[in-house]
């Protein structure tokens, strides 16, 4: 099925553990993004990627690592999870045109205990 999928949908982890959130899109969109959504803050950009092997920091990158070895995948890793990283994480993809729609995944609800 065409689209953008995130996994897992829900995750509970302990402080200090490494966690990887997966994102896969089937459109071959060049741009991919990771956002976190928290009450009172809205959607905040963590990292983005313009193409395979090209990534850059967004607004709140500390504590996160990304990679993009293939166009369709953009995993987000929390190297040592902290309680402040409890959030809902959204992956999005967008084509190269500036007027193109950004498509979002269903989100991953991460709880760090």
């Amino acid at each position, binding site marked *: 099925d065409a689209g953008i999928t995130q996994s897992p949908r829900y995750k509970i982890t302990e402080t200090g553990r490494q966690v990887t959130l997966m994102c896969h899109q089937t459109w071959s969109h060049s741009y991919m993004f990771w956002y976190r959504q928290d009450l009172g803050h*809205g959607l905040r950009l963590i990292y983005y990627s313009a193409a395979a092997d090209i990534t850059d920091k967004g607004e709140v990158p500390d504590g996160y690592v990304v990679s993009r070895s293939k166009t369709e995948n953009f995993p987000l890793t929390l190297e040592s999870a902290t309680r402040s990283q409890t959030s809902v994480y959204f992956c999005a993809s967008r084509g190269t045109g500036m007027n193109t729609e950004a498509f979002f995944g269903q989100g991953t609800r991460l709880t760090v205990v």
Partner: protein
Amino acid sequence: QKEVEQDPGPLSVPEGAIVSLNCTYSNSAFQYFMWYRQYSRKGPELLMYTYSSGNKEDGRFTAQVDKSSKYISLFIRDSQPSDSATYLCAMSLPYGNNRLAFGKGNQVVVIP
């Protein structure tokens, strides 16, 4: 000052009322303006898209952009319970990394 300001207060309206939402922004270079709708426990989905200044209408929804005031609006006429969702404004530049800058969102509840 954040790039995009959207008063995140919730809004409850009776069915059939007009819902009015707005955002202001600071970067005059923004050219593409969007409204996303997000249902509970779902990802945001594009609702309306406008390029530069002007109005755009799609059924019960109207998006307005006033670039001189750096102000965008979304109006929902004859609101329905199915319109209950969070509405986020977003905007992007005509160049650069293709990222979207989002407002904080407004939770709208339409009461039957």
